[in-house]
């Protein structure tokens, strides 16, 4: 899962940077890779790819600051919907 998110961020959100790789705890917000428009696209990708609904009040730094946070968020949501 984290590889897919990583690749999406690199190819769709960081298009004007010559990035090849990101570490799982690189700060996507402070680095500017994830901006206010990018997060809309990222949420759309996550919802479509993993079949979850991201609620408006879940769009907070704890869930999107880096790849590891995003993965953990998706896993929590997936587990909650399965349970």
């Amino acid at each position, binding site marked *: 899962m984290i590889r897919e998110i990583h690749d999406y961020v690199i190819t*769709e959100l960081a298009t004007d940077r010559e990035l090849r790789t990101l570490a799982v705890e690189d700060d996507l*917000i*402070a680095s*500017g890779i994830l*901006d*206010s*428009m990018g*997060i*809309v*696209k990222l949420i*759309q990708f996550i919802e479509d790819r993993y079949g979850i609904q991201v609620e*408006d*009040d879940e*769009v*907070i*730094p*704890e869930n*999107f*600051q880096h790849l590891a946070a995003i993965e953990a968020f998706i896993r929590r949501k997936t587990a909650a919907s399965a349970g």
Partner: protein
Amino acid sequence: MPSSESLVELSLSAEQRELMERVRDFARRELNDGLIEREARSEFSREAWSKCAALGIQGLPFPVQYGGGGADVVTTVAVMEALGYGCRDAGLIFGINAQMWSVQMPILHFGTEEQKRRYLPKLNAGEWIGAHGMTEPNSGSDAFALATTARKQGDGYVLNGTKTFVTNAPVADVFVVFATTDPRLGFMGLTAFVLERSFSGLSVGRAIPKMGLRTSPMAEVVLDECLVPVENRLGPEGAGAQVFRVSMEWERACILASYVGTMERQLENCVRYARERKQFGRSIGKFQSVANRIVDMKLRLETSRHLIYRVAARKARGEDVTMDAALAKLHVSESFVQSSLDAIQIHGGYGYTTEFEVERDLRDAVAARLYSGTSEMQRNIIAAGLGL
């Protein structure tokens, strides 16, 4: 890609059309008296605001349990179109829209049950007026670069900063404002708050004179060590950008529906004038240079209507309308400016006079290219949606 369903013409029901007719009649009868003089004085009409609330305008799309009308998005847009047709006071309609989409809607979406019960019934009923404070003296289109801060103190927050161009501020009881709780987090460090006018440290500056929409008062809001209880935070810490995004999506989708009605009235006035006004022994509408201008107005009206209702229909189905709302906002605002210029040209010297009530549309129209994100920002959103 748009679904094929979105290409099919949307039909309004008999009930929706009847409701539109009632709103048009109400607006013509109740909201236009003394407009030229009120506009010249930049005078807000609390009476007209209350009449709209009594009819159910402000509360129309909000749940019945909070005193709203429980209407769907398409019905709401249809009613706003009818209001724009019957009511010539665009400032009044703008103020109502500002409250509905950027105060009531975020409270409905992000508010606690207690917040919804405290604020929505009074806003729906017109007892309280709401304002939205995002723009600051040094952050306009780059909205998330705001400087207002919120620091934790005891069981609440202390806000410091200045908001400008705050519609309804001089008459508002409630303010939805945005501040940063953590500047290092950029747009994700923003948090939204609901402030009440009586809060210590909140003050409203003098009304700002402006080109159009003059019956809609606007001012600065200064927050100087403004004490805000934690129960007045709107949504979680760090969710301010999402609160703002949701509000703007609603606003862009719906705020210009009234201009579709206004453009229809404007078109009808131009057709009537072009038939009645004789020059060189013929109605001026018989000259192609005049007729073509009116045809272009008709085309802008119909494309604007199509885009507005398409967004409403998609929103009603729960689809993401980020790009469609930006397309509608961009097209309707630019169309209304151009059609207002055309209306003046068709009316000649009379169109330039205050008495004919043609020039006011142009002054009101220009603002639509600026508020809720400039036309340039709408293009940025659309470009991003296209993967650029």
